[in-house]
């Protein structure tokens, strides 16, 4: 449980970090909070020859709420900082609700949102939350920068749209419309454990109490965070009655592709998804009032 030898670089600027990554390519990994990468290195599952440590790079951890209620989060913002950020809690309360279930306080103190998303573990909460919030990611490299929608970012287990020389630099969340409610719900074997199933629900209603928009996404539900657009669409125009929720849950169970784990069979995961999607939607709907 000791890592293989590696070279460690500690750049102090984004430009320097990107230059190092460009130079070392696939031999190099960015080190953010280290909560996934370092254990993998200790198991020697990951044996990067070079670590580019981002912890000394200035200006990557800002959290800012825009006048319109949008939110930008620097990739190196610690999960605990986001969880406790008063503006973020108000603008996108599902962030704090889901982060509260991410591992344990010690891990959240160190782990970063950018590192978590770049790791792209399909069992992780935050990629699913990003889908449900229609996040966009600012990606930088020595060649320039580009933006990618969350829906196009996660390509497979531990696989993202990031090129070898690219860094996820910033997470941009559009504002939630008025009369929106959100909820994160997950079922894990123990507190802080990987979810056997997790569901993010974002619901918007109009002044008459009719649902106008829904976004749903699940973790531990397939090779990537899994959106459930058909289930979401089925609720638009309804009042989210129990029957509506049951129909949406049934659709969602068809839209996901859980593969099972040592903790849960695929059939149980699918069952759970239906149960907690209905519960999360009901909670989000109440909060949208």
């Amino acid at each position, binding site marked *: *449980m000791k*890592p*293989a030898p590696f070279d460690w670089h500690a750049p102090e600027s984004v430009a320097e970090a990107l230059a190092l990554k460009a130079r070392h390519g696939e031999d190099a990994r960015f080190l953010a909070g280290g909560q996934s990468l370092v*254990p993998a290195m200790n198991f020697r599952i990951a044996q990067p020859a070079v670590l580019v440590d981002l912890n000394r790079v200035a200006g990557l951890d800002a959290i800012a709420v825009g006048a319109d209620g949008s939110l930008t989060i620097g990739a190196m913002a610690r999960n605990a900082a986001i969880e406790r950020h008063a503006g973020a809690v108000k603008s996108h309360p599902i962030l704090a609700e889901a982060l509260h279930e991410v591992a344990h306080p010690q891990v959240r103190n160190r782990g970063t949102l950018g590192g978590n998303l770049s790791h792209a573990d399909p069992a992780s909460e935050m990629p699913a939350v990003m889908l449900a919030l229609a996040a966009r990611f600012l990606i930088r490299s020595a060649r320039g920068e580009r933006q990618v929608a969350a829906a196009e970012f996660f390509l497979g287990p531990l696989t993202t749209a990031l090129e070898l020389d690219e860094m996820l630099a910033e997470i941009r969340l559009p504002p939630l419309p008025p009369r929106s409610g959100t909820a994160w719900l997950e079922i894990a*074997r123990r*507190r802080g454990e*990987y979810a*056997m199933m997790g569901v993010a629900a974002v619901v918007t209603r109009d002044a008459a109490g009719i649902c106008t928009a829904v976004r749903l996404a699940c973790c531990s539900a397939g090779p990537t965070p899994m959106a459930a657009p058909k289930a979401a669409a089925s609720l638009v125009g309804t009042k989210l009655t129990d029957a509506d929720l049951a129909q949406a849950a049934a659709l969602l169970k068809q839209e996901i592709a859980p593969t099972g784990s040592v*903790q849960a069979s695929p059939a149980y995961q699918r069952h759970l998804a239906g149960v907690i999607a209905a519960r999360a939607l009901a909670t989000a709907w109440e909060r949208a009032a």
Partner: protein
Amino acid sequence: METRQIGRPLTRNEDPRLLTGRALFVDDVELPGMLHAAFLRSPHARAAIRSIDTDAAKARAGVVAVITAEDLGEYWQPGPLLVPPPPIKGMVFRQRCQVPLAKGEVRHVGEPVVMVVAESRYVAEDAVGDIVVEYEPLPPVIGLEAALSSDSPRVHADLPDNIAADVHQAKGDYAAARAKAAHLIRRRFTYDRGASNPMETRGIVAQWDHKAEKLTVWDTTQAPVFIRNGLAAMLGLSERQVRVVAPFIGGGFGPKMMMFYPEEVLVPWMALRLDRPVKWIEDRLEHFTATTQERSQVHDCELALDARGKILGVRDDFLMDTGAYNPYGLTVPLNSQCTLLNCYDVPAYDSRFRAIYTNRTLVTPYRGAGRQHGIFVMERMLDAAARELGLDRAEIRRRNLIPADAFPYHNELIYQDFAPLTYDSGNYAPILDKALHAIGYAEFAAEKAKARAEGRHLGLGVVCYVEGTGIGPYEGAKVRVQASGKVTLATGVGTQGQGHFTSFAQVVAEQLGVDVRDVEVTTGDTDVFDWGAGTFASRGAVVTGSAAHGAAVEVRTKILKTAAEHFECAEADLVLADGAVSIAGVPENRITLGELARLANPMRGAVKPGTVPGLEATSYFGPQMGATAAGAHAMVIEIDAQTMRPTILRYVVVHDCGTVLNPLILSGQIQGGVAQGIGNAFFEELVWTDDGQLLNASLADYLLPTALDVPRMDVLHTETPSPLNPLGTKGAGEGGAIPVGALFAQAIEDALDLPARGIEVSEIPLSPSRLWEICNPSG
């Protein structure tokens, strides 16, 4: 000061050191010039070793030695049979013990193949990665029933099949009991266990002092004296030349009683050969496959009852996975076989088990050590019988409890300690009644109905258990009063968190009239005390405690004799209290124990012929057989019927382990045991593939219960002293863990009304996922 010390709820003498990080653990041993070992371990459950290329590893900078089985020469020997089987008529027992490094064939994932010693653990692990082993994978033996088929591959090619043992024991005439039964209940059960996962994994440091010609070994063993004796013999040293220290150990639970682990054989040998200290600390990944575990049993049981629900007889036939080797003999299956009878009067018993070799990690006792398997079977059978007979589940138990006037109660089987299975003492009905009262059994039906009306699913469980504890052979203790007036106690057992520094001190202080804080206890250092067997089978308080009591009684006699001579009075006129002896009624005529110790060890002048110096005594205690503790657990659980997530609402333990030495320590033992029982019942499971790979060898995937998963519990006691030892005590190390699987099964069935749906819980461990599958067999 209190004169009674036994029974006081004292906080622990050792805790200030432990809580402030000043206690020595094996990994704290840092020595100049120390080298570090790492092991290449088999990635296959079963494979032939075709070749091993260590050239690149040897060439790596910082590598000092790379050793294969061939390099060990005559030092390569299979480990000793630790526990030979008891003399049971007609039994089959085929011993195959673990080897230091695999030769020719690997038999389980994690079996060591090559040892590397280097200047750091980092370099040693790098060098392990340099080694190339050519394996030819062979089909492994994994499933128990498949292992029995005639075309199964064999774990040990030189044996005719995979049967490690085949043992039949009987009491009474089961066939006759069956013939007159009004009811016959038949069920099949599977019970899997996990890894003990102590907070501290195994570790060993060895140092050869070539000037003193002495080998010192720090080892996380539960049996330092046997390790010392064994190492001396293996290494060709005299026992005087080997010192084994088992310092503070972060949990033992049984697997640290196994010996000799390959690393225990190899690290001291390497330290001698290289004349440099060598350290090996097991990492958690290694722990999951290289430290012994407990594992599967499959039971087919039949219960014969009369029309009133009185047990007439039990027949049980079970298979047990013993892993790739069986150095621990039959301890685990014998415990299952014997403990199945539980606290009930069973006139006829017919039991057979077969222990099966498989290509999985070795099985040796882990807290409960097979007892929970037996308890699970009997308690589940009674639940099924209660339903068939339309009896209340508490009532069917009450009708079958061994009556209080039936002790000593003879079960006519041979137990793991080779002694007949006889329950020395007990009074079971008050235990059950106390548990039922404390959990609110009488009111529960109404509580359950009220909750159900709110859509909540509450269930209650109540189960009984016994625990054979405090077995022989013997332990010893040496007590001495120092010139300072403080008292030392030394014993050969190791300590892994049981509170020995306090409970043994209480036993001594009780006799010597000193403050418990003034008794300094040394455990697990063979240079201080080197007779004894070790810490296992819930025997420390019983066997070592009784030895400490015996030594303290002798020292008390010496104290009074010395004081009587000093005061020139009769011993009967003396009072021993508060660290001094005084004359009754004349408290100013007083001499401290320190002064008496100096009188007993004069520097000048003549002593009487035959005088033995000092206020010191050594005493040994060996019980004629084990003392049987008993108890009942009761629980109210709530299950989310959709997600199958459980929440424990109330938990009651009623425990009878005879005389209680320290209720605070006892409560800690029981609560820790319940925590492990909860882990076993609902969280922990070693998940293996069909080709013998462990899928969850990390604490991220193998789920130990956390503080949030273990409820507060009411721990209540009854006290039925054992007549087998002077303290009247019985062991308490394992009772907390034993009945929890049976308790969960019953409470979950109750919460979800499973029997009414034709569903029973017949397996452990459970999980939300598994429970959902059981409840939804069609998916």
